[in-house]
C-alpha cells in the first residue's frame, strides 16, 4: 500500500497527452519506492481456498497491497487494475473485490490501469476467461491485507490491540470507545507497515460482502465512455506524432517485390512512403510487413495507400481456396485419424451395432472484427520504447517489443488503453510491433491505424473445421458407441511450422472432454494445413465442437422419436465426475487442476434442467416457432442455452427469446455476467447466421460489414434471460467471458429444425432455409 501525498505526486504532466499524464502519475506515485517501506510480497498462492493454474502462468499471481493499493490523505483509495479491459468488466470487478475486502467505500475508490509489467503485477494475459478465475483469491488477499494494515495503524494510534478495532465503510472504528479514523488519516502510517504475513490475514465472511455478488456497481469507465473521454488505442496523441497505415501482403507469405509511391506522394498531406519489415511465417505475432504510408492525418494516409502500386512476391498459399479446402477436410474426416481419446472398443461397438447414425458438420473460418480495429501508438527514442495500445497481453507485448527492438526489460513500457472489443484478436500484438518499428525508423512518435479491411483480411482467424460424428445404437436404441473426428488447421501453426493436427489445448475444448455416459468412445483428429494466420476467437474450439456434438444429440433424438432435452440428459447420464485423463492424450483442463475443476455431470445436468424450466421447454409455441437446446462445459463453467426462433413463410429467421443458465462457481459481479451472456447471444447469433471469411487464390473475399455482416439491433434476440446458479465460496470461480458463445449456434440450429424440419449442418445459416 502506498500513501499518496498530493504535494509529492510525481513529475509534472503534459496536459495534452492524457495517457502520459496518467502514466506519469502511476509511475510517480503508485510505483514510487520512496513511500513504500519494507514491502514484503505475500507468498504466491498463499491462503488459496482452492488451487488454480494461476501460478503456472508466466509470473503467476501477486496479491501485495503495496503493489495494488494507494490511499491519499483525503481518503481516496486508488486500486490498480492489472488485467486489460475489453468489455468483460474485469477492470471494475477485480478492484471491487479489493475494495470489499478492505471495507472501502466504492464511491471513494478509483481505478487506474497498470502498464505491462508482469514481474510487478503477476500475469496480465487477459485471455482464456481467466481474470476472475485466477485473481479473485489474490485480490481478496490483497484487500484483506490492506484492511489489516489500516487496522494495525489505528490500533497503534490508540495503543490498543488490533483485535479491538475494525474497518467499516472507509474508516477504522474502536469498538469500545467508538473512536474512529478515516482511511485517509491512517494512510501514511498504514503504508509504512510491512505486508502482513499470510497467517495474520483474515478474509471476510462472504455474508458480509457489500459489493461482491450484488451487482449494483456501475463500470468504472461509464462516465468516460458515455462522454467520449475514455481513452482507447487510437485516442493517444503525442507531440509531433505521425499517422500511418500499412498495405500488407494480400496473400500470407508474400513480400514486397517493388512498389511505386509516386501517385501517393503527390497527395496533399502524404509525407512519406516506406517499406516495413515482415517476418517469415510462422512468426508468432510478428508483423506481416508491407508498405507504410505516413501522412498528416490517418485519412490522408488511407488515401495515399489507395494510390500505391505494389508488386508482391509469389506465395505457396496462393493456392488456398476455402471451398476446395472444405472438401479436402471432409475427405480427411471420412478416414481414420490420429486417436486422442480411446475408451472401450469403438470398432467392436460399430460392428455389432443395430444401427449407426452419422453426421458431418462444418464451421467456416471467421474474423474477430472488434469495433475498434487494431491500432497502436509508439515512441521509440534514446534507447527506450513506449507504446500505448489496446492489448490483451501487455506483458507478452512488453516481451515481444524487447525482442523485436533488441531492448532490455526496463527500457520498454507498454501502456494499456481501453480495448474497443478484442475477442482474442488483441492477444496478438502485431499492430503494436508495427508501430514501434515505424517509430524507430522515423525517429518520431507514430500511430498505426488498421482499417476495417485490414482487420478482416489480415486477422488471426478462427480456424475452419469439419466434424464428423458417428453413433452406434444397440437393439434398445441405446447409444453404445461414439466416434468424433475433428479436422481443422491448428492455431499452433502461428507458433511452429506445420503442426499438422489439432493439439491438446484445442481438442480438449469440447471433443475429448465429452461428458457423456457411453461405453465406447473414440475421438480422432485429422491432418489439416494452415494457409492463413490462425488464432483464437471467443470460446475457441468450443464453437465447432459444441455445434457438432449438440446438434448431433438433437439429431439422435429426432431419429429415435425422443425429446431433445431428455435425450441430452440421458447421454449425460447420472451425476458423477467424468475423468477422461486416462483415456486421453494430454487432456488440457483450461490450464487449471482437474481436482479443482473436474467434469461434474451433476452441474452440467443442473444448468440443462434450470434453463429448460425457465424457458418453458415444451410449451406450446405459435406456428413457425421452434425451440432448441444445447449445453457445454466451457472454460470450466457449465452453460446451457435455449433459443426460440420464429421462421416466417419466406424463411426469414428471428429470435424472440433466448434463455441461458450458467454455473460459474463463486461469482463477483452478476450484473457483468448478465451483460456478457446478453452479448454472447448476439455474438453467437452472428456466428450462427452470418460469419464466414472465404478465400480464393489465398485472398480473403470479405472486407467490411457489408460482406462480413454482424447482427444489428433489428435482428438481435428480442429478449435474453440469464440465470446464474448461486454458489458459495467453496465452489471455485470459473470462466464467464467466453462460455456462453459456444452453445448458442447449436441451440439456434436445433430450434430451426424444430420450427422447419430443416437440419443445418453447415455454418453460417445464411440463406439456407430461405424460400
Amino acid at each position: 500500500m502506498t500513501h499518496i501525498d498530493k504535494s509529492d505526486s510525481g513529475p509534472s504532466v503534459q496536459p495534452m497527452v492524457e495517457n502520459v499524464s496518467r502514466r506519469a502519475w502511476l509511475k510517480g506515485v503508485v510505483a514510487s519506492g520512496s513511500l513504500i517501506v519494507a514491502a514484503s510480497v505475500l507468498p504466491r498462492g498463499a491462503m488459496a481456498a482452492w488451487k488454480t493454474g494461476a501460478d503456472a502462468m508466466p509470473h503467476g499471481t501477486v496479491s501485495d497491497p503495496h503493489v495494488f493499493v494507494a490511499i491519499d490523505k483525503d481518503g481516496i483509495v486508488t486500486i490498480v487494475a492489472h488485467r486489460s479491459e475489453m468489455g468483460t468488466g474485469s477492470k471494475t470487478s477485480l478492484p471491487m473485490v479489493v475494495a470489499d475486502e478492505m471495507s472501502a467505500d466504492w464511491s471513494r475508490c478509483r481505478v487506474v490501469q497498470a502498464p505491462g509489467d508482469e514481474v510487478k503485477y503477476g500475469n496480465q494475459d487477459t485471455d482464456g476467461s481467466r481474470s476472475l478465475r485466477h485473481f479473485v483469491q489474490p485480490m481478496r488477499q490483497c484487500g484483506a491485507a490492506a484492511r489489516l494494515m489500516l487496522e494495525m495503524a489505528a490500533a497503534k494510534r490508540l495503543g490498543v490491540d488490533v483485535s479491538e478495532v475494525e474497518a467499516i465503510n472507509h474508516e477504522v472504528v474502536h469498538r469500545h470507545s467508538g473512536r474512529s479514523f478515516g482511511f485517509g488519516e491512517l494512510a501514511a502510517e498504514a503504508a509504512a507497515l510491512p505486508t502482513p504475513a499470510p497467517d495474520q490475514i483474515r478474509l471476510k465472511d462472504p455474508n458480509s460482502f457489500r459489493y461482491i455478488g450484488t451487482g449494483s456497481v456501475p463500470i468504472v469507465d461509464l462516465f468516460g465512455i458515455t462522454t467520449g473521454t475514455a481513452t482507447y488505442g487510437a485516442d493517444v496523441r503525442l507531440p509531433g506524432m505521425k499517422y500511418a497505415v500499412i498495405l500488407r501482403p494480400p496473400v500470407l507469405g508474400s513480400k514486397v517485390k517493388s512498389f511505386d509511391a509516386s501517385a501517393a506522394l503527390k497527395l496533399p498531406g502524404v509525407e512519406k512512403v516506406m517499406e516495413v519489415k515482415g517476418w517469415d511465417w510462422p512468426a508468432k505475432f510478428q508483423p506481416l510487413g508491407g508498405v507504410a504510408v505516413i501522412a498528416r492525418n490517418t485519412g490522408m494516409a488511407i488515401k495515399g495507400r489507395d494510390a500505391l502500386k505494389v508488386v508482391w512476391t509469389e506465395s505457396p498459399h496462393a493456392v488456398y481456396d476455402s471451398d476446395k479446402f472444405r472438401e479436402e477436410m471432409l475427405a480427411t474426416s471420412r478416414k481414420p485419424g490420429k486417436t486422442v481419446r480411446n475408451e472401450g472398443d469403438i470398432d467392436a461397438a460399430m460392428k455389432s451395432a443395430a444401427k449407426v447414425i452419422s453426421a458431418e458438420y462444418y464451421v467456416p473460418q471467421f474474423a474477430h472484427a472488434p469495433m475498434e480495429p487494431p491500432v497502436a501508438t509508439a515512441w521509440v527514442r534514446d534507447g527506450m520504447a513506449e507504446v500505448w495500445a489496446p492489448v490483451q497481453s501487455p506483458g507478452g507485448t512488453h516481451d515481444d517489443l524487447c525482442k523485436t527492438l533488441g531492448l532490455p526489460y526496463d527500457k520498454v513500457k507498454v501502456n494499456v488503453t481501453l480495448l474497443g472489443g478484442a475477442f482474442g484478436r488483441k492477444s496478438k500484438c502485431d499492430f503494436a510491433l508495427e508501430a514501434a518499428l515505424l517509430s524507430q525508423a522515423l525517429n518520431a512518435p507514430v500511430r498505426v491505424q488498421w482499417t476495417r479491411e485490414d482487420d478482416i483480411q489480415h486477422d488471426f482467424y478462427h480456424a475452419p473445421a469439419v466434424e464428423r460424428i458417428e453413433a452406434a445404437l444397440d437393439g434398445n436404441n441405446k447409444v453404445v458407441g461414439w466416434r468424433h473426428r475433428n479436422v481443422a488447421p491448428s492455431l499452433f501453426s502461428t507458433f511452429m511450422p506445420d503442426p499438422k493436427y489439432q493439439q491438446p489445448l484445442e481438442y480438449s475444448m469440447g471433443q475429448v472432454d465429452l461428458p457423456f455416459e457411453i461405453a465406447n468412445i473414440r475421438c480422432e483428429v485429422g491432418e489439416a494445413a494452415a494457409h492463413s494466420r490462425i488464432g483464437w476467437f471467443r470460446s475457441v474450439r468450443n464453437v465447432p465442437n459444441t455445434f457438432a456434438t449438440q446438434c448431433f444429440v438433437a439429431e439422435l433424438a429426432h431419429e429415435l422419436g425422443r425429446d431433445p432435452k431428455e435425450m441430452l440428459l440421458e447421454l449425460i447420464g447420472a451425476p458423477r465426475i467424468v475423468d477422461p485423463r486416462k483415456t486421453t492424450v494430454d487432456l488440457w483442463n483450461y490450464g487449471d487442476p482437474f481436482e479443482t475443476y473436474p467434469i461434474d455431470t451433476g452441474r452440467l445436468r443442473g444448468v440443462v434442467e434450470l434453463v429448460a424450466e425457465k424457458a418453458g421447454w415444451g410449451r406450446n409455441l405459435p406456428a413457425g416457432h421452434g425451440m432448441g437446446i444445447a449445453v457445454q462445459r466451457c472454460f470450466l463453467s457449465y452453460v446451457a442455452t435455449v433459443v426460440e426462433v420464429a421462421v416466417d413463410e419466406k424463411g426469414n429467421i428471428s429470435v424472440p427469446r433466448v434463455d441461458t443458465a450458467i454455473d460459474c462457481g463463486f461469482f463477483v459481479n452478476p450484473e457483468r455476467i448478465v451483460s456478457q451472456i446478453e452479448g454472447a447471444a448476439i455474438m453467437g447469433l452472428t456466428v450462427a447466421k452470418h460469419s464466414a471469411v472465404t478465400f480464393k487464390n489465398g485472398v480473403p473475399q470479405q472486407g467490411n460489414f457489408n460482406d462480413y455482416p454482424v447482427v444489428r439491433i433489428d435482428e438481435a434476440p428480442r429478449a435474453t434471460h440469464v440465470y446464474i446458479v448461486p454458489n458459495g465460496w467453496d465452489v471455485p470461480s470459473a470462466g464467464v467471458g467466453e462460455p456462453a458463445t459456444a452453445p448458442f449456434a447449436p441451440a439456434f440450429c436445433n430450434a430451426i429444425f424444430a420450427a422447419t424440419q430443416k437440419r443445418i449442418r453447415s455454418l453460417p445459416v445464411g440463406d439456407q432455409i430461405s424460400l
Partner: protein
Amino acid sequence: MITLSVNGQEHKYDGDPSLPLLWFLRDEAGLPGTKFGCGEALCGACTVHVNGEAVRSCAVQMSDAAGKSVVTIEGLDPHGNHPVQRAWRAVNVPQCGFCQAGQIMQAAALLKQTPNPTDAQIHTAMAGNICRCGCYQRIEAAVRIAATGV
C-alpha cells in the same frame, strides 16, 4: 481554407477538401470521442450531428462540412448529462464502450425528432450502429428510458 463550427467553436482546415470529417475531428481538431470503425458508413461508430442531423462523419467530406455546425459526443452536453447519456448510465449499457459515442449521438438525434419512438422506430433509427459486444437489449432499454425521462 475551410471553416466550420465544432461544438460551438470555429475551426479552420487547410488540407485536402476530400478528407472525411472523421479524420479532421480525430487527428486535427483533437476530438477523439468520435470513433473509427469501418470508414464506409456501415457501422455508425463515427456518428456526429451536422446541422442537427445524425450523420456518419467517415462519409462526409470536409468540403461538404464547410460552414456547417458539427456537434460531437464531446459537445452533446456541457456536463455530459444529456438525457441519453444519463439513460445509458442508468442501464450500465456499455461493455467495451467503443461504439457507444456513436450510439448515443444516433439516439439523441432520434429522440430530438421522435420524442416517443415505437420499438420499430428505435430499431430503424439504431440499425446503422453496430455493437459487436452485443449491448442492443440495453441500448433499446436506455433509449426508452431517455424518451420517458431519467
